């Protein structure tokens, strides 16, 4: 009888402790707390891959696959994005017809600023990505905008990322309810299943990084945008963040949104924010 009571008391206290542990989480889920989200997001990957150095997550699949990493290190001596990088450098310094340059559109002349993008524009009330800012710069100077997915846009962002290599991602969420909303929308987009395959971004890049999907090794979501733009051997060319989102969508058999749609801008904002503190490694090379 006595043993039974103590058992009962024991389980009651265990339940109370469990409740006490669980309840702050429930509260946290109901209000938007980007700081806590980023911490939880990073911890998830740090615990899943305890041997991977934190700053190494920005190297995608190479961070979690030793064999691929060896091959990639050799490739990095002569990276396939080199031509795009040179082209980007030349384009960046070539003036527009009106004599102005890209440098006039960006803080610090556009050098070493990749880590600050995307940012929340409090005047527009929306997220502004680097690709968007580049095309707005072109249009403001009377030039036709570039395609968001590859070629010139990828070359330009490759050069801008290269000048920012090693700088920690530094995304800010200003004190504006719309910025919090953009972050929350991006988070929801990231975790929502879509397409006939019923996959969310997280199905692959949170639940299965390091695992194979057909012949590819999936990259961890943490720091995945720090390496953008990328040269993908599969594409035999460069691709931007927009291209990555669009192709991920169509692979799940969802009709992709238009590049730089609000949803894509928000998910880029979310993914970049949770990678705050991790270094820029772009332009990257992926199989």
């Amino acid at each position, binding site marked *: 009888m006595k043993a039974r009571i103590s058992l009962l008391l024991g389980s009651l206290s265990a339940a109370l402790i469990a409740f006490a542990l669980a309840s702050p989480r429930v509260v946290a889920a109901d209000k938007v707390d980007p700081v806590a989200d980023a911490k939880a997001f990073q911890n998830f990957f740090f615990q899943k891959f305890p041997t991977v150095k934190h700053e190494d997550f920005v190297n995608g699949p190479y961070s979690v696959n030793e064999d691929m990493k060896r091959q990639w290190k050799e490739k990095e001596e002569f990276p396939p994005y080199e*031509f795009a990088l040179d082209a980007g450098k030349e384009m960046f310094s070539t003036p527009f017809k009106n004599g102005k340059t890209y440098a006039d559109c960006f803080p610090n002349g556009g050098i070493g600023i990749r880590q600050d993008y995307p940012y929340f524009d409090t005047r527009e009330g929306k997220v502004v990505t680097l690709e968007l800012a580049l095309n707005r710069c072109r249009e403001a100077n009377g030039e036709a905008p570039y395609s968001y997915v590859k070629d010139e846009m990828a070359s330009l962002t490759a050069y801008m990322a290269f000048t920012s290599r090693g700088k920690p991602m530094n995304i800010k969420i200003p004190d504006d309810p719309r910025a919090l909303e953009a972050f929350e929308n991006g988070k929801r987009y990231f975790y929502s299943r879509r397409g006939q395959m019923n996959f969310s971004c997280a199905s692959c890049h949170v639940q299965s990084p390091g695992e194979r999907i057909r012949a590819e090794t999936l990259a961890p979501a943490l720091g995945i945008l720090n390496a953008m733009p990328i040269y993908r051997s599969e594409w035999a060319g460069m691709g931007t963040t927009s291209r990555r989102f669009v192709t991920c969508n169509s692979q799940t058999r969802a009709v992709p949104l238009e590049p730089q749609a609000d949803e894509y801008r928000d998910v880029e904002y979310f993914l970049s924010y949770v990678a705050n503190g991790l270094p820029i490694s772009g332009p990257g090379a992926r199989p």
Partner: protein
Amino acid sequence: MASSIRVRATNNGDVTEVQALIQHPMDTGLVKAPNGELIPAHFIQELKFECNGKDVFVANWGTAISKDPYVKFSFKGARKGDEIKISWTDNKGGSDTTTAKIA
């Protein structure tokens, strides 16, 4: 216009290791453009590396080589400071040449 060839050659006393990256579409002639028409074959036929007047690496290529090909090989008999000359010609008569010093 920058050269279509990037070279890096290093000598460790005995062996010279050469790496090169060449920008070329390497079209096979079997792929269709978005408008449905075949993209005509356009590929490097001969790639040559010369050092001190001697051929050290000659390749007869076809359409099975990838776009923007990368080549790596090593050879003996060269010294630091020697010049290495790289040239390619393609099936449309295009060509390019560049030189690099062995480091």
